[in-house]
Structure formats: C-alpha cells, structure tokens
C-alpha cells in the first residue's frame, strides 16, 4: 500500500487500531443455533465484521470486536439471536 507524504491526518486500514473493542459492549448477542436457518443476514449486516461465517454457513460472534450494537438480533428473521446483558 502506498503511504502518502502529507502533513495531515490520514488513517490506513489495519486490524484493531483501537484495540479489542468488545470491551465497549453492554449487551451480548447470543445465537440459538437450533433456530438458525443460515440465511446470513447477521453476517451481512454486522457493521464491525464481528459475525464470522464458517464453511457450512453456520455463524458465530467474535466477542473480541463485537460492540453489542444489536443489529444482528434486529435483522434475524427467526429471532434466533438474543441480546443478553453483560455481567
């Protein structure tokens, strides 16, 4: 990737520049795999790329980076994701 020679504020894409942001979470998405139909809406909608997709299209949450926004739970057509308060 090209690095610019500019005296201004530029941020380059990298993994976890802000650290493990999962610690910001108040509510934690918990997937009920018995009800999951593998539609992948949660995976597509997650703004943080914190829903991980396996080879068989089953999904899991990367709690290191999930901020607990609840978008996945809102989008799930089977109500298979519950938002549980963090301890």
């Amino acid at each position, binding site marked *: 990737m090209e690095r610019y*020679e500019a*005296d201004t*504020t*530029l*941020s380059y*894409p990298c993994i976890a520049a802000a650290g493990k942001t999962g610690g910001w979470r108040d509510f934690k998405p918990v997937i009920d795999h018995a009800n999951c139909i593998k539609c992948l809406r949660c995976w597509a909608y997650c703004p943080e790329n914190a829903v991980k997709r396996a080879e068989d299209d089953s999904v899991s949450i990367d709690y290191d980076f999930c901020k607990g926004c609840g978008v996945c739970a809102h989008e799930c057509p089977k109500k298979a994701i519950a938002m549980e308060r963090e301890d």
Partner: protein
Amino acid sequence: MTTMFDVGNKIAAKAVQLCRPEVIAAYPITPQTVIVEELARMVEAGELTAEYLRVESEHSVMAATCSAASMGVRTFTATSSQGLAFMHEMLHWASLSRLPIVMINVNRTLGPGWSIWVDDTDSMSQRDTGWIQLYCSSAQEIFDTVIQSFKLAEHRDVQLPVMINYSAFTISHTMMPAEVLSQEQVDSFLPPFKPYWRLDWRNPVTFGNVLSDEYHMEKRYTMQQGMERAKQLIPEIAREYEQRFGRFHGGLIEEYRADDAEYLLLAVSAVGSEAKVAVDNLRAMGYKVGLGRVRVVRPFPDEELRRLGKGRSLIALDRNISVGSGGIVYHETRSAVLGVAGCKVYGYLCGVGGRDVTYEDIEGMALKVIKGEMHPDVVGWWDLKTAGGN
C-alpha cells in the same frame, strides 16, 4: 503573449482558465460574480474542461472544493465578504487538510449596513485560518499571481490553500490592460497537479479521523513551517516568473522609492497603488517618503518589515478594522518591528467601509505624521465625520 483589456475579474478568470482547474464550485456574490460567470461561460463554450458545481451556499462551495481537492484534482473558487465569512469553518478544514485550493476573494464590506464596496476586513478577519493571503493592486498582478499561486500552494513544502485578494470595483470592475500568456507558456511554468495525498478506493485511507491530543500541536507546527517556507518561495516563484515572462510585482513587499525614505507608507491592494501617486507628489514637495506595498499578509512579512523599519517611521494605512484593537496591518507591523532601532509605527484607519482613499487623502495622512501632529500610539481615523477623527 497578447494584450487583454478588460475588468480585473475577467482577467482573473482568464488566468484561472490557463491553469486548467478540474473542479470549480461556485456560488455568486457581488463583486466576485463576474469571475465565476466567466468561468461558467468558458465551461459551457468548451473553452475549459472542468467540472462546474453550482451549490447552494458558500459553506457548501468550500465543502465541495475541499472534497474535490481531496480526490487529488486542481480546484478553484471565488467569493467575497459575507460569502467568505460563511465559509469560515471550511477554511480551517481546507488548511488543516493541507489542500492546495486557490480562491479569489474580492474584498467587500461586511454588513449590516448592506454594502458592496471595498473593505479588507472580510479577508483580514480570516487571517488565522491557515490560508496564505496575497493582495493584488492591478489586473496584471492578479493575472500573474493566480498562475504563481497554484505553483505555491501545490509545492511539496507548502501544501496550503491560497487566498488572492483585491479591492471591490476599484480593481474588480475597472478596465485595465494585462499581458496574457499563452496556454503553452502557462503549461511550461505550472506542471499538472500531483497531490501528496488523495482519497482513492484503490489505496484506501480515512481522512479527518479522530486525532488524539498527542498529535494536534505537531500538525500546527508543520503548517507554521509551511508558512515560513512560503515566505521564501513567494519571492522565488515570482523571480522565476520574471525570468520566464519578464514581469515582477515584488516579493512579500513591493518597495517603491523606499531606498532613502525617512517615512514609509504601508498599504495593500488599491490603496497600495494609489499611494504611489502620493509618494511621487510628496517627493516633489521635498519629503523623503516611500511605499512598502504589502503583497502578503499571511505569512506576515516580519523580517522584511524589520529590515525596512530600521531608523524609519512606518505609516500603516488600514482599510480594515479589528474592532476593539484597530487596524490589522498597523498592529501586526508594531508587533513585527518591536525593538527595531529608530522605528516608529503610525497608523490610520482610512476608507473603512468603502469610502474612496485618494492620493490627496494619503498625502494628507503622511503630512500630519511628517509635521509631528500624530502620535505612534494613537491610531488616526482619517476623514471621520464625527468627533475624534483626523
């Protein structure tokens, strides 16, 4: 090279066309409108290949110009007075982004009372926004300065936006001749813009992200360094232009009959050109008066003023006012020459709000200083109609 005879604004537009801007965002405001109208005509007639954006306000003009410049293209816009004031927030954005935008501001009185006449407070009050500020006295100087400004703004060591200023009507709408360069000549002087950063999906960056307090002061420091470098580059680029095309309007300050002067007038734009006539007349009367026409207000030419101020009286003529302080060139000059041996700084507010400042007015102001009727600590209000003026 051909001679063009037209108003200052049309000659400005001609220079802009020759610099090949790729994006022009515009919102009309008297007295600059002629510039963006002429550029619109050129785009419509196929005489200029540029994206011409008509947006809904001056704030949006500067936002659009910043956005376009962030994509790595050469940009231009023009404004005046209330329009410039409305851009204020985005002026900071442009300079902190190190975007080499070139903008013409035609100096016009801020209202109310509503006015379209000349006063330099509009641009002078934006002097802390990180823009280089140049002031022109003739159509020819505007033409040459536009071309030099893109080169200055886009220089690796500068990367700051440039605001070119000149007086409403007395320059913007006055017919004057100007020698106009050919496209080949301008192309040979001003290479295509090479951005130092840009928004590009093939090399993604986020711009304007949160920056912690660890780094802000350092960013300001690099801007200050850019300004200091511009102090060297403005005269250098002007001399290079002179070598190529034979015209030179001065470096940071144009000196006129200054060598043996005991009194040196300081003025910008139209008052600066009018003062030359006053200097000639005062010389004919036997007074050793010269002129330092201030062409650059940011970066402020402190070193030049210290050199010029040695053993002399400086007389600053301000067509602007920082209310609660006074004339801006006067105060900045006093600050610059503090401790310079034998230097006194006198100041006048004159023509504030657009009243004419004739060579006779300037002679009158100089003569009061020469005759010992002025005190350096007390700024004169020239031709004030209420009590307290000179």
